């Protein structure tokens, strides 16, 4: 289409640059602040020029908030959430889509309803379950047999406690379900004619075909897992299991101490980096995953 619209074009570029300042500006402030000295970062007016102290500030932040352990824990947690989520979603969606069983509708609705209640609104009782995992089992046993069994197992301060409750939602299942539904019926039929049973079909057809789907889910789940804040806060008391989001507090300058925001910003930069890299590098998959899970 031939367009000669100088005013609209100027406006368009203006809007795009304004959006850039608005959305990317904070990153610039964080990066410049993180590379400045204690005096520079507190200067008025703030200088947007990056300085040369980025690595020093980062290493100061690293020791102050013991980011080594925290980064490792966050990485393990995000990876476990991702792997668990991808694996369970693929399996559950397979059961829901490719089988004709009376239980199908039951599975579907059971998983579907979990979309309605995010962890945040049921966080109190979920915490209680994680703190006393066998409570349901105990109640069941005492209801059936009348015996009081005292088995105790809590998930506090463990990777299981950090990850399992986060895996117990439906988003990934629906991404997979949507994908499976787009596959032509004939694919499963051809495989059946070729003599393949359901497990074979899952391994030979669905897994390789869902590769892009898996990548999309992996990116959004990694970011989701890494960015968890409230749940680790409740589950972890042992510093050995602290995640990066919990170290944010340790990075904050104390009210009466020196306001060394340069170190704080350098620390938050480290914490922000992994998900930022994932989204930047795998943006295509990330966007695809986002759009697919919500629709």
């Amino acid at each position, binding site marked *: 289409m031939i367009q000669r619209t100088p005013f609209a074009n100027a406006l368009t570029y203006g809007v795009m640059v304004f959006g850039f300042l608005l959305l990317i500006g904070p990153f610039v402030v964080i990066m410049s602040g993180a590379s400045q000295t204690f005096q520079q970062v507190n200067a008025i007016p703030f200088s947007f020029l990056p300085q040369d102290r980025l690595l020093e500030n980062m290493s100061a932040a690293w020791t102050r908030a013991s980011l080594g352990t925290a980064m490792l824990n966050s990485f393990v947690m995000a990876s476990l959430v991702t792997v668990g989520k991808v694996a369970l979603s693929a399996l559950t969606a397979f059961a829901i889509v490719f089988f004709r069983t009376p239980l199908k509708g039951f599975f579907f609705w059971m998983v579907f309803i979990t979309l309605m209640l995010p962890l945040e609104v049921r966080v109190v009782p979920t915490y209680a379950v994680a703190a006393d995992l066998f409570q349901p089992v105990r109640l069941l046993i005492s209801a059936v047999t009348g015996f009081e069994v005292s088995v105790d197992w809590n998930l506090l301060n463990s990777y299981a406690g950090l990850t399992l409750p986060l895996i117990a939602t439906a988003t990934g299942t629906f991404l997979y379900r949507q994908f499976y539904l787009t596959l*032509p019926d*004939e*694919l499963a*039929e*051809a*495989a*059946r*004619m*070729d*003599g*393949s049973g359901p497990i*074979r079909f899952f391994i*030979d*057809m669905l897994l*390789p*075909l869902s590769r892009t789907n898996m990548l999309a889910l992996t990116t959004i789940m990694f970011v989701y897992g890494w960015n968890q804040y409230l749940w680790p806060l409740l589950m972890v008391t042992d510093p050995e299991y602290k995640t990066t989001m919990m170290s944010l507090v340790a990075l904050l300058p104390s009210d009466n101490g020196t306001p060394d925001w340069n170190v704080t910003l350098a620390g938050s930069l480290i914490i922000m980096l992994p998900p930022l890299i994932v989204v930047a590098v795998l943006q295509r998959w990330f966007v695809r995953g986002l759009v697919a899970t919500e629709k």
Partner: protein
Amino acid sequence: MADIAIRAVRKSYGKTPTLHGIDLAFASGEFVVILGPSGCGKSTLLRMIAGLEEITAGEIAINGRVVNRLEPRERGCAMVFQNYALYPHMTVAGNIGYALKVAGVPKAERLRRIEETAKIVGLVDYLDRKPAALSGGQRQRVAMARAIIREPNVFLFDEPLSNLDAKLRVTMRAEIRKLHQRLSATSIFVTHDQVEAMTLADKLVVMNKGVVEQVGQPLDIYHRPASIFVASFIGSPAMNLFDAHISVHDACLAFGGTKMPIEKALAARLGERHVTVGIRPEQCVVASEARGIAMKVDFVEELGSGRVIHSELGGQPFAACIDEETHVRPGDRIALELPLAHLHVFDRETGRRIELEFEPRSGRGATKRQMLEAV
């Protein structure tokens, strides 16, 4: 090689019946074409033979063994799907050899047979490609190779040519026929295209609304359609059909303002009644005003090898094929003779054929035998 018997087979989805009791028998090595409009239940029948649909009632036997409860893989059938259903992530070789892989055939043996099969369908140079990098005709060949490699007793084709362009369709049609001559496995081919059906079939099954309308050799069905539906469905341009009245008193067939005399005995046998009369456009003959029925030409379709004129008879559209020598223009008047020997008469209530002659014409004996065989 296997014969197939379909006995009183019914299919319902919930309370909606789609097949109302099908009885058919196919001999070993026969090429059977099931023809019908979309929604007539032909694909359902094929998929029931394959084991992809459950059988509501009745039974299907392959080689004398009832297969109702058998899994698809246990039936020894191979199927070519309408959209080919190639595995998009596997190479051509992977697609062709998948069934053998599932069956646990050793790799060396598998590769040998893939190679062999690829040669049959002319795909040797494409074995490493993915389906996305193939043309429509090549994909079609992969789908066939995937069926051939299993050396099945029965080949099932579910409208395999409908996704190809017109020219390729003709080529692939010939290839399928050649392949059948070479492998001579029982083949069942479902289509809604009557040209495909006529050219491919040893035995043609015409279906409509979940029932079998007629079974027989293609030419028999063309010449002696058993019902109004078959008459109108087979042949192109479609058969002219118009209302008529048999008058015993006048010994004639009255339609569209004309009376065609018939033998008194025949008139007496048929009785006074309303019927539907049909004649194929290609069997109308241009005649003089005295012998023929005069009509006004509405428009003319040029086919190159001849032309089709469109007109009206008794208020109903009427088409006739004339040779390229006869020149007519819209608005001209033309007289057509409708030879009695080529008239098809159908009961207007039941839609079934009414025989005009006692003596069977040539070919009828075969039809009868096959009809018996089928039932």
